[in-house]
């Protein structure tokens, strides 16, 4: 069976002035559907960049990213947008919620982008907010929520359309230990419950330990731990 996502010899470099900085140097890896992996590595090694490339946000300088054996970056802008909308969910270190919208509106955004009717999008969002345990915070704006709650809303938003891959970039990096623990617990739970494959970038070795699969990014390459 073909893996859900496969990175083949992914190179990524940036130009900082006159200097070319090679972040990824032929990173390769694959993830099966429903599989969960942690990604660790020191700061600045390119974990976020790797996640962006896997998540089709940033095209690689060289190499390819395949979803179901199909080259993601050969798609048109529109197909790529629709693909991100349906198949990938992102959670970032900062919640990145839209501050003027309530938790419910934020969570229904992917549905609205998918041009679902408002009622349907909000029903789905409500369902997902219940799953992450925020049914009592539907009409609160991000500013009125605690850090942990914000990250739960972000998680609900990432998962509302039941994507096949969740990419979490240090989702607990900004939270205290207990709260981070809770979010992590939720991630593992959701992976088991919804069968969504996930890559979780983390600095917390204890949390990384608990993942069924552990990856490490060193010198622009992905290695299994």
């Amino acid at each position: 069976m073909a893996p859900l996502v496969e990175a083949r010899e992914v190179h990524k470099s940036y130009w900082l002035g006159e200097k070319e900085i090679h972040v990824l140097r032929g990173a390769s890896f694959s993830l099966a559907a429903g599989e969960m992996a942690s990604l660790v590595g020191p700061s600045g090694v390119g974990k976020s960049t790797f996640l962006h490339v896997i998540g089709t946000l940033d095209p690689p300088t060289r190499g390819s990213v395949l979803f179901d054996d199909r080259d993601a970056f050969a798609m048109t802008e529109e197909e790529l947008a629709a693909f991100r909308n349906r198949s990938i969910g992102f959670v970032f270190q900062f919640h990145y919620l839209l501050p003027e919208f309530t938790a419910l509106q934020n969570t229904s955004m992917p549905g609205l982008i998918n041009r679902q009717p408002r009622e349907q999008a909000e029903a789905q969002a409500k369902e997902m907010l219940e799953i992450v345990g925020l049914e009592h915070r539907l009409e609160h704006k991000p500013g009125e929520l605690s850090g942990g709650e914000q990250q739960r809303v972000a998680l609900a938003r990432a998962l509302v359309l039941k994507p096949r891959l969740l990419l979490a970039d240090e989702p607990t990096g900004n939270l205290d230990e207990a709260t981070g623990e809770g979010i992590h617990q939720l991630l593992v739970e959701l992976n088991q419950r919804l069968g969504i494959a996930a890559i979780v970038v983390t600095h917390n070795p204890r949390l990384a330990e608990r993942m069924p699969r552990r990856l490490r990014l060193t010198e622009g390459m992905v290695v299994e731990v």
Partner: protein
Amino acid sequence: MKLHWRPSPRAEGRGAVGRKAARPAVVSAAALALFLLGAGLQYSLAVWLGAYTTLSRDAVNGISFAMEGVWFLLAGFVLSFLGRGYRPLENLIASAVFGAVTFFVLRALKPPSFSYDRFFASTGELVVWSLAAAAASWLLAMWGASFGMLIGANGHVDPRVRYEWGIARTHLRLNRHSALLLALLGVLPPGLFYALGIAASFRDPHQRPLVHPLHILFMVAVVLASLTVIGKWIQHRAQIARLQPGQRRKRPATVVMTGISVAGVAVGVWALTVVLSVMSGFESDLKRKILGTNSHALLLKYSADFSEWRSVIPKVAAVPGVAGVSPFILNEVILSHGQTVTGAELKGIDPATAGAVSELPRQVIAGELGWLSKPQDIPGTDRVVEPRGEAAKQLGGPEYEQYLEDTLKRRQAHPEESQKLDPEALRNLPGICIGKEMSHQLRAWVGDVVNVLTPLGEMTPTGPVPRSRPFRVACILYSGMYEYDSKFVYIGIPEAQRFFKMGENIVGLELKFADVDAARALGRRVVAALGGFPYRTKDWAELNRNLFSALKLEKLAMAIILTFIVLVACFNILSTLIMLVLEKTKEISILKSMGARDASVMKIFVVEGLTIGAIGTAMGLLLGLASCSFIEKFGLQLDPDVYYISNLPVNVDGAQFVMVAAISLALSYLATLYPATKASRLSPVDGLREE
């Protein structure tokens, strides 16, 4: 904050899957074909309108070129789907070829020149026109393509703006509170103007004081003060409702800039509507006065012999569109009364039919126009005929009563003026109608005897001797045009024929049409009905060409200058949107990571700019409308000796307001294109790399 203002490298490489974009040569060829078709459409439409409608040449040109412009927009729209993008280069090639083709076609067609000392346009002029055609085709095509890009020309068509509008609304901070504030700000000042106008209209119209600058200052101060109080109140309410005591709300710079942009557009639209309304007020006032004294057109003959006019009149009257016909004779004379002498245009008219072609009978303020043919009815000098009628009311005032009193005193002091002739001969003197200003100059009122002198007199052995005849003033006319009231005098046709020794001839026929603006075309129809040469017509616009050309040019110049104000206001929108794009880079990235299409991101910012433009335009239009009503009701006084109009005229023309709104919205839309396109091309990671 670092921004990548260039399309992501992905943009060039993609497109392998899905519908393919047409090749450059195909796009260019299609663009050229569409441009040429548009030009052909314009030419045939202009020819067709000119041949089958009674529209004026300006209207024909306006309509046909507007259609061509719309065609180019549509062409750009279609091309954006064909080329899956703007394709500026391919369009530019097509436009350049189109310009070259235009040049050669124009040279073959030999179009008339804009300059008066040439019949045909020179090569230099043609080059300018061709360049303009090329530039216009490219710009309009790009403009049309932007619509295509907005609804997804590079993929599936999706004109919906549901969540985009929701996001745009948060960027603009449009919620119930700000909407209420905007509505109040938009309605209050115009309401105040309107109320002031209503209050002013209750005053006695004869006691109008000249506007004092202090009054205006006071009014402005009142408006500003009330606005400040209301604004403070709303702000206070909002703070109580939302915030903890001591907490200050942060307001990003973009919110302030949004407000400034709205105000800028509003002020521009306000100025544009008020000035255009006043200018068109002047124009319609002038038109009304000119057409009150003159007919819509003159039927003349390339010959001094027009003795068959009695048989021509029924033929002319039978032409559809002709509402009235009346004969006339025109010559220059000298008028004298006592010691005063003045030059005049003597017009022989038929009092019975003159009312059918002009407003002459309604301009009579004393006496009767009918007395021209029945001079026996003119009262003697023993009493003063009182002014009457609508026109007389406009004069009113103690000044005029004084003039009438003086007339009576003058007649009592100089009885010899009317006693040179025996009473019977006096009663049989032919009548003459003079304008109000001439009446003042000559100091002659109804019943007075004036001498008319023509230089075209008898030839005697000592040379030509001017011929003169006494006439009795039958009526005083007031048209409202100083020139007419001081220059024109009227006598009956038979008297004029006798006086100028013309026999049965007349100079021409005055015509009135059902539709003033179709005067030229209907004139051609009349000439055709009479068999063409030697007959010809001259319409009112031709006869007063200098005046109306000057007015039209002035109006155009004002419109252009004021459109620049709106343009500048739209630069505000542009900078506000650029600030917003910078502020919202992160948000754009999040939306893209959630699967928002480039076209959706573009829509967000276009909708924002258009909302700013629309709110500003609506406010400006309301303000303009209220200001016009205020000017009309309050009656800002003008110096009547200079303008010969007592109040600043305004003419609120719905079409003009719609045009201003369209210009303002079109400019707002254009202002959004750059920031919106840039925002849509931001890479999703641009906003995520921060922090």
